[in-house]
């Protein structure tokens, strides 16, 4: 039986309780034995990406302490947070220090959810049913920093009764960008509206992303535009057993 540790991310923790429950139940159903280190907070990316590297270090230390009581893989519902741990934690500490050794070790066993399913567990069909027209927004860090180009679509294509339709400018940023949204709200607005317009003209009734940040932005944007299109995290769709009406 595989073991894994849940890394719920701070946005998941604050806003997406149902998604985290679904993630837990889905992984357990697939035979993964889960633990949840309660000392985890945030990976520190908001500080790191805004230039506060020194202030990121104690946050990263808290994360590494929380996840080093077990050597099980660390799974998160976000490519962006995983990329922070995987690609940037080792750069926070000087080579040769015990902290650096730990950061490299932690980085090597941290995985994004779909990456873990498709590339580690080698599972592409989780038995979900979702009789809807679905389109997919490729999140920037998930796509470019993690290099996850096919994993989400592989999972979506295996969902029963799901019709995947293409999204114009699928790989264009939705305007989230963490602190960017509050630093330059007007630019974030234009980018979000562009994304929302493309989603609406895709003809889908559901839009999927693998990133809580994009989800907050796009779901809020769709609501504001008066659209009935559902924005969902891929985990929630993969947990669906909805039968055709």
């Amino acid at each position, binding site marked *: 039986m595989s073991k894994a540790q849940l890394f*719920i991310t*701070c946005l*998941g*923790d*604050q*806003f*997406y*309780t149902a998604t*985290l*429950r679904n993630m837990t139940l889905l992984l357990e159903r697939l035979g993964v034995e889960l633990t949840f280190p*309660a*000392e*985890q*907070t945030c990976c*520190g990316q*908001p*500080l*790191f*990406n*805004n*230039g*506060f*590297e020194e*202030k*990121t270090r*104690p*946050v990263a*230390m*808290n994360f590494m302490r*929380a996840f080093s009581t077990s050597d099980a893989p660390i799974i998160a519902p976000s490519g962006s947070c995983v990329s922070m741990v995987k690609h940037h934690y080792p750069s926070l500490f000087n080579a040769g220090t015990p902290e650096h050794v730990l950061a490299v070790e932690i980085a090597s066993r941290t995985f994004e959810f779909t990456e873990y399913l498709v590339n580690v567990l080698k599972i592409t069909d989780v038995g979900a049913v979702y009789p809807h027209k679905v389109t997919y927004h490729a999140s*920037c*860090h998930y796509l*470019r920093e993690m290099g996850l180009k096919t994993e989400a679509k592989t999972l979506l294509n295996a969902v029963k009764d799901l019709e995947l339709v293409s999204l114009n400018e699928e*790989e*264009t*940023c939705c*305007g989230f*960008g*963490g*602190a*960017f*949204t*509050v*630093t*330059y*709200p*007007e*630019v974030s*607005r*234009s*980018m*979000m509206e*562009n994304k929302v317009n493309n989603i609406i003209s895709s003809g889908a009734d559901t839009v999927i992303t693998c990133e809580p940040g994009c989800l*907050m*932005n796009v*779901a*809020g*944007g769709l*609501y*504001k535009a008066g659209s009935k299109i559902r924005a969902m995290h891929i985990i929630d769709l993969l947990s669906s057993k909805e039968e055709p009406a």
Partner: protein
Amino acid sequence: MNRATQPYIGFEEYSEHVPQSIPLAVQQATSRFVSGRAARVAELPQWEELRQIGSDIRQHTMENMDVYLTRLEAALQSAGGHVHWAEKAEDARRIVLQIAKEHNVKTAVKSKSMATEEIELNHALEAAGIQAIETDLGEYIIQLAGTGPSHIIVPAVHLKKEEIAALFSEKLDIHAPADPIELARIAREVLREKFLHAEMGISGGNFLIAETGTLVMVTNEGNGRMCTTMPDLHVAVVGIDKVVPDWESLTVFLKLLARSATGQKLSTYTQFITGPRRAEGEFGPEEFHLVLLDNGRSKILKDPVGRDVLKCIRCGACANVCPVYKNVGGFAYGSFISGPIGAILSPQMLGTQTARELPYASTLCGACADVCPVKIPIPTILRHLRRRVAQGDEFSALTVPVPIRVAAMFASIALAWNWIYRLGARLLPVINPFFRRNGWLSGMPYPLSRWTKVRPLPPFTARFRRWWNVRSAKWKDST
């Protein structure tokens, strides 16, 4: 443009008042370039290898800049050209004015050049009583409009044909129709006269070949050739970063440049100028001057992370794919160079006091790095410059505003001491009822107001931890 007079670049302030027509015009033009580039790249199976070679040649040249510049100078001098070294923008302006004065120049025709935009040469020429005329169509348009360029290769990209027609009608006192072919014809007619009478041609340069002292110009309109052959005096102002070791390395960049910039295999004109004409009957001016511009570049070279910006071959591909640039246009970047490359060059050239907002003018989406023909790691340099702003480094003291520094300090403490974070997460849902409408939070106070002015926020739930604990307790009881 020097450090003392360059005003603060207020990206945020500009972004709040972007004229509506700009994003539309910019997106129309850039999407054409993006699809053109993609088509050309798809034709070349060795594209990725080519990018790597281009990047490696740039790296090697940066590390041996002194060697190649010295070689260039010697080669050009033996070909009969004059070489001038300009440490700062004002030195370059002074050198060009001096040459113009010595030759009693009244009118100068200019080919499109980012270096002369950088040093704001036109203002200096005008102040000295010399009429400087831009002859690239885009540059001619923005000169009439009295603005700087808003894109590296299409300086007037922010204007629609109707706006250009109105501008021509007003400035040239004619009736100009909103027809691109007709507008180009009008400009050509005006400019042809100028070419015939100008005493000096001014150009920039895309590359300098150290081996032979050759200036390389990559253009599409033919005006560059007119500027550099009609007048008897040619002055080229070129950044020191444009040097390439030899002709063989040049071929790599010529393959990369036009494909990345306009989606052409090769631009219409590729000119190689090695000094002045040497014999009667040869084309070219009697006198050729090269002004090598430093203007902060050797200082940038000392920064092992930031210096990759000097690999840039000015194709503009990063701007064409940048969702931020496409929604604000080039003027938001407050300098001669815009888009992602401007966001990493201006803070290094002008300092992180003047340009401290620019490194933050990105979502770090990484689309720019994917298309950069010389693999400049733009997001990495953006983060590097954000560090310079937020905490200072050996090149500059920190320039971040105090409230943000304080907020970062509190965030760091709350996220590192996990009991503070967990307590906060349990308390936050208390505020939901005050702002909740239809299952969303809106109209929230600062700083969340900056989120909710654009779209509502999902309610704070933070129930997962409790669910996990209850479930684990039950599970323990039952076993």
